[in-house]
């Protein structure tokens, strides 16, 4: 059962860089130990929160893309919940949306290919924009 999830979590703004690294690596270990796979880790940096969370106005956003089953997500969320510096997290399943987008893209590409053998390259570039 392989699904792709996006875990976004916010840690408190005063958390040291090393502590963040430690937290991320423990999460990565948790993923790999339950036969999952970490696709990417993205630090989105410090951002202003839209509303106060645990009396914080800012937070450091981290985005983790993970492949694995539901059990893995359960474990990761449990870990995030008990980790004190994490003030908020959100998990979103993205594989189905990605599948949908890929499908749309494939259709678009096919259409473009069909429209490509148009007379001039310039009009050929414009035609798909008007018809697609």
């Amino acid at each position: 059962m392989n699904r792709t999830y996006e875990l976004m979590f916010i840690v408190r703004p005063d958390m040291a860089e090393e502590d963040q690294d430690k937290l991320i690596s423990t999460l990565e270990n948790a993923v790999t130990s339950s036969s999952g796979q970490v696709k990417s880790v993205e630090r989105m940096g410090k951002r202003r929160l839209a509303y106060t969370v645990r009396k914080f106005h800012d937070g450091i956003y981290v985005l983790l893309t993970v492949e694995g089953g539901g059990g893995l997500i359960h474990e990761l969320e449990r870990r995030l919940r008990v980790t004190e510096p994490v003030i908020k997290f959100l998990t979103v399943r993205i594989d189905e949306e990605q599948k949908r987008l890929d499908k749309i893209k494939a259709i678009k590409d096919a259409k473009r290919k069909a429209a490509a053998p148009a007379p001039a390259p310039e009009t050929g570039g414009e035609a798909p924009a008007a018809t697609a």
Partner: protein
Amino acid sequence: MADETRSSESSSSSDRPDRGERRPSSRPGGPGGGREGGGGGRKYFRRKKVCKFCVEKIEAINYKDIRLLAQFVAESGRIVPRRLTGVCTPHQRRLSLAIKQARNIALLPFAGRAA
């Protein structure tokens, strides 16, 4: 031609949030104006609203794309209804889901301005 529609669309979308606030108060005036002109229909011209996502072919409505989502959130934090924005039903559905996800992770406010 495509550029022209796009530029006018983006300019109208930028003032959209406050338009959403203003509309309800101006609306009662609309039918009154119609009555004044007799059976001649509406007095003012309203541009046909089009779905931004259909026109600009934006397929991905992601909760991380706050700049996109913020165009459809009023100053008060409300999701602007599609009768004001002209977004089509399938896109409004995705849009509202994305906005709610963004609210959950403190990217967008539940109520009020992002503080």
